[in-house]
């Protein structure tokens, strides 16, 4: 552990709280342990059992045996949306979230600090502005002794808005691919994938083929300038609808969904949505997720009916999830998340 770096991470958390508090957001402290976590097909929650105490033999009260499956949250999303439905307008939650089976590759830990914030009656634009301003504010409040050209130019760019690019623009600029005609057309996309030297198997979905191209040719360049010498914070938005289960479709073109990601350097910092508030559509997407989990041989559980019931009252909201540990990494030019954590995953689990 490096004492200076650990302290910087703590300072980042305080600066983030201060930013949202000053702007009239109310901090929520949502539960970490829930009965019905999200069912994203590629996330694995940690499961345990919540049990009521056993009563003494011979007690006059009815024996209450209660044992309930419970999981650590992978994100506070459901609770936050229920709170929006209950009447809050601008809320944020900053706390540990838990995801199993993530690679220990220097950018993940099974336990990590996730910030989420939500606004009622808002869209992607407001989220992007919030994120830019929040990062600038954190930079202004932090002191680091680490130096590198990337950090220096990052710290200096606090008054410029971040670059904004649609997924289609990014595919065109970095991979030379025209996305429009390929939307929803797996055969055409497969042909392009082969031309770009990617492997195509019959079981590869449209999304799989898209990612092979995107990850190979676009993602590594997104958060950088042309010459790859400086970070260029970039919002990537307007995703093909299949990749945004919880987002509203773009009213101008329903083949796209209103989702945004923030990339800085090689890191994905944030993932945001104009949130879907139609319970029927949401239920349909949940059923699809569950089916895919089953197909992948993964455990499934009931859909959160309370969540679906709350959706209409949530209305037209926007929300975003942001990696706090990763922001701390950027500030100090850390190559691995372990540099800013007091105890690495290997230290905690591999002894």
């Amino acid at each position, binding site marked *: 552990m*490096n004492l200076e770096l650990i302290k910087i991470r703590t300072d980042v958390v305080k600066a983030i709280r201060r930013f949202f508090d000053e702007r009239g957001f109310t901090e929520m402290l949502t539960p970490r342990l829930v009965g019905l976590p999200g069912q994203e097909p590629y996330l694995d929650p940690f499961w345990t059992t919540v049990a009521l105490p056993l009563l003494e033999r011979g007690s006059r009260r009815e024996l209450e045996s209660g044992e309930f499956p419970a999981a650590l949250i992978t994100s506070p999303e459901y609770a936050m949306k229920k709170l929006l439905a209950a009447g809050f307008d601008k809320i944020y939650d900053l706390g540990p979230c838990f995801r199993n089976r993530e690679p220990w590759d220097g950018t993940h830990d099974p336990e990590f600090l996730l910030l989420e914030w939500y606004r009622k009656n808002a869209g992607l634009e407001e989220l992007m502005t919030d994120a830019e301003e929040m990062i600038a504010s954190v930079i202004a409040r932090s002191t680091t002794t680490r130096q590198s050209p990337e950090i220096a130019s990052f710290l200096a760019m606090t008054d410029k808005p971040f670059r904004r690019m649609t997924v289609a623009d990014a595919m065109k600029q970095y991979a030379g691919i025209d996305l429009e005609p390929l939307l929803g057309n797996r055969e055409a996309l497969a042909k392009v994938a082969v031309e770009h*030297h990617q*492997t195509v198997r019959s079981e590869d979905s449209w999304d799989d083929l898209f990612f092979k191209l995107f*990850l190979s040719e676009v993602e*590594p360049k997104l958060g950088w300038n042309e010459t790859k010498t400086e970070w260029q914070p970039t919002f990537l938005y307007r995703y093909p609808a299949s990749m945004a289960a919880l987002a509203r479709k773009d009213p101008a073109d329903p083949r796209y969904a209103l989702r945004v990601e923030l990339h800085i350097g090689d890191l994905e910092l944030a993932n945001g949505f104009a949130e879907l508030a139609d319970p029927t559509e949401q239920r349909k997407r949940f059923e699809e997720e569950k089916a895919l989990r089953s197909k992948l041989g993964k455990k499934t559980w009931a859909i959160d009916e309370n969540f679906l019931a709350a959706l209409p009252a949530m209305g037209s909201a926007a929300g975003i999830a942001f990696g706090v540990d990763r922001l701390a990494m950027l500030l100090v030019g850390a190559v691995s998340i372990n540099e800013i954590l007091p105890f690495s995953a290997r230290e905690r689990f591999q002894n």
Partner: protein
Amino acid sequence: MASPSDIKKSIVIRDPQGLWVVVEFQHVNPGKGAAFVRTRMKNIQTGKVLEVTYKTSESIDIVDVEHRRMQYLYHDAMGYNFMDNANYEQVSMSDEDVGEQGKYLRESMEANISTFEGRPIALELPRKMTFKVIQTTEAVAGNTASGNITKEATVEGGIKIQVPIFIKEGEGVIVNTETGEYVERA
């Protein structure tokens, strides 16, 4: 057939366009999506470099290559020069092919070179190597309760690594050449 999870630096993959040596790879799960392995590979014959991304559930064809134990001699305009002590044959690898690993090479040290049809295609350094610390801040009688507090140090070759605070200038440290991390005192 092998799995993309078997991909490591310097292995050779065969596909319809020929043989490719893996230069870099990374496991990626895009936006809570499926697991992929993004691979940068270089064609052994043409030198063409590409990024190919595999789903972890795919099969790939990993080819066996010859490994030769060679001694590093010197660096010049041609690149890094090695000699096979068994037959005194010399080979050279370009700066580009050796890349970041070049900074760890020390005169007369031994390393494995993978070759295909006699041509050197990748360098494999010993996973752990000893270096002298050239520059670092004062050794502090540390808070040994945690035993884990680190500071930056520069070792031979200008390489910067994180070391425990009790390490002094002039001391030898063992470094993992794959990750660039301190392992232990020499």
